[in-house]
């Protein structure tokens, strides 16, 4: 059961802000301010330029937190407050932290390397090193909120969010933990911006610089950043403490393509398998799905293959289900994508709307489903299918249901 939610997104800080941005179709994509992009053809990103960690975390101790840790801890604070979860020595062993992040403190790693080269090994600041490990951000959450159950970092790229959630619910199901802070985060830095740019993965190199999933003009991603944390609890525990329950995680399907590094499996086999697994294990029918939160991110192959996978699994019924991608508004946030999609779906369930796929102007014959173009749609949502996948090979799908 999901009982709390904290969001720090490119188009909204805090769940209310995020939900209203999605409802209005407001994009968080704008020119990058954090570093100089004059040498590049691409200038845009989903940067959170108004993020002030001291508002959430105070001043003390922040010095050792790299941006990823700051984003994650801030989102965790919002989620804990939202769930009204009191953490003390009675329950600290029954609460865990599971975080999806793939780049984590990549910027620290780059900084360390830079100092090593510029100043030499004797003058490289050793204190950068502890914050360089991939689990630094996740660990800071446990330290800050004194959470003594398990702490794990899952770094499976595009599907990190849902994979992290699966890890957590498996632990809850076997009775090993009562509640888990499931979070996901990736932050924008020159390192990952440059990396994707040099791989030619960005929009704006061979076409317009816009995040337009499913649109004929799509030609690459616009990178985004952010963190989202949900509190997931065992149903009995949640009821015992009279928690407000948003939604139930019905089930998750995940699998790996084992095709080629950085290439899409041509038949989207892994994604189809994940979708089928998720729906089958949820004991729902395809007709029960009210909305599909897509992983489409404006990459030609990605959007086409997701459309194909949906059509192959749902058959003709695919044309009756609204599908939209919030990445049109927040960009490709990589590991955090899935958690943002979950946060958006909870908003859909409680505010009664489906977020739009914005920037949709030109129809593509390969992508012919109902993508809720440009304007959000007012409607009742109970069951959502959320997909997470990318050319890394990892695929995950989740079915989320509104709690009655």
């Amino acid at each position, binding site marked *: 059961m999901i009982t709390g939610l904290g969001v720090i997104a490119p188009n909204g800080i805090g769940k209310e802000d995020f939900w209203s941005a999605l409802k209005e179709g407001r994009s968080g994509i704008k020119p990058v301010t954090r570093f100089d992009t004059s040498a590049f053809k691409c200038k845009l990103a989903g940067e959170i330029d108004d993020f002030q960690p001291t508002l959430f975390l105070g001043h003390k101790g922040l010095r050792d937190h790299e941006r990823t840790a700051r984003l994650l801890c801030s989102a965790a604070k919002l989620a804990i407050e939202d769930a009204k979860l009191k953490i003390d020595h009675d329950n600290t062993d029954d609460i865990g932290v599971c975080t999806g992040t793939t780049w984590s403190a990549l910027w620290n790693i780059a900084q360390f390397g830079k100092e090593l080269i510029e100043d030499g090994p004797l*003058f490289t600041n050793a204190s950068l090193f502890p914050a360089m490990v991939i689990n630094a951000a996740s660990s800071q959450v446990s330290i800050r909120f004194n959470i003594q159950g398990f702490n794990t970092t899952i770094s499976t790229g595009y599907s990190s969010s849902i994979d992290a959630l699966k890890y957590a619910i498996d632990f809850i199901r076997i009775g090993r933990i009562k509640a888990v802070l499931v979070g996901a985060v990736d932050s924008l830095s020159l390192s990952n911006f440059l990396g994707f740019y040099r791989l030619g993965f960005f929009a704006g190199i061979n076409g317009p610089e816009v995040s337009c999933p499913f649109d004929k003009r799509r030609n690459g991603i616009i990178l985004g950043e952010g963190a989202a944390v949900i509190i997931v609890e065992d149903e009995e525990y949640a009821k015992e403490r009279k928690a407000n329950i948003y939604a139930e995680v019905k089930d998750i399907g995940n699998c790996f393509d084992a095709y080629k590094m950085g290439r899409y499996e041509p038949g989207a086999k892994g994604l189809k398998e994940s979708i089928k697994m998720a729906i089958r294990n949820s004991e729902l029918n395809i007709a029960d799905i009210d909305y599909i939160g897509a992983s489409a991110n404006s990459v030609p192959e990605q959007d086409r293959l997701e459309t194909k996978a949906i059509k192959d699994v749902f058959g003709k019924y695919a044309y009756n289900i609204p599908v939209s991608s919030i990445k049109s508004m927040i960009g490709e946030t990589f590991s955090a994508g899935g958690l943002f999609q979950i946060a958006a779906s909870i908003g859909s369930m409680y505010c009664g709307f489906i977020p739009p796929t914005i920037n949709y102007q030109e129809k593509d014959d390969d992508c012919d489903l109902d993508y809720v173009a440009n304007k959000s749609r007012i409607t009742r949502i109970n069951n959502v299918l959320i997909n997470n996948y990318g050319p890394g090979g990892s695929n995950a799908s989740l079915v989320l249901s509104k709690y009655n």
Partner: protein
Amino acid sequence: MANNFEEEIRQLISNITEVPIEKLTLDADFFNDLNIDSLKAIEIVAAFEKKYRIIIPEQDIPKIRNLRKIIEYTVFPK
């Protein structure tokens, strides 16, 4: 000259440890009085070495427990 140097080091330690400058007296013990842990101590030494381009031998580090000791060490290096 010495005064400026003292202020510089005080500022450096204050930035790293987030201890306000007023609390960083010449004799306040880093570990016992100011609650600075060993990792922070390493960071202070590293920042110091980088700024003044000197290497402090490992065996000397435990002797430097307060601001006075750092200043003495730098002004009268052995």
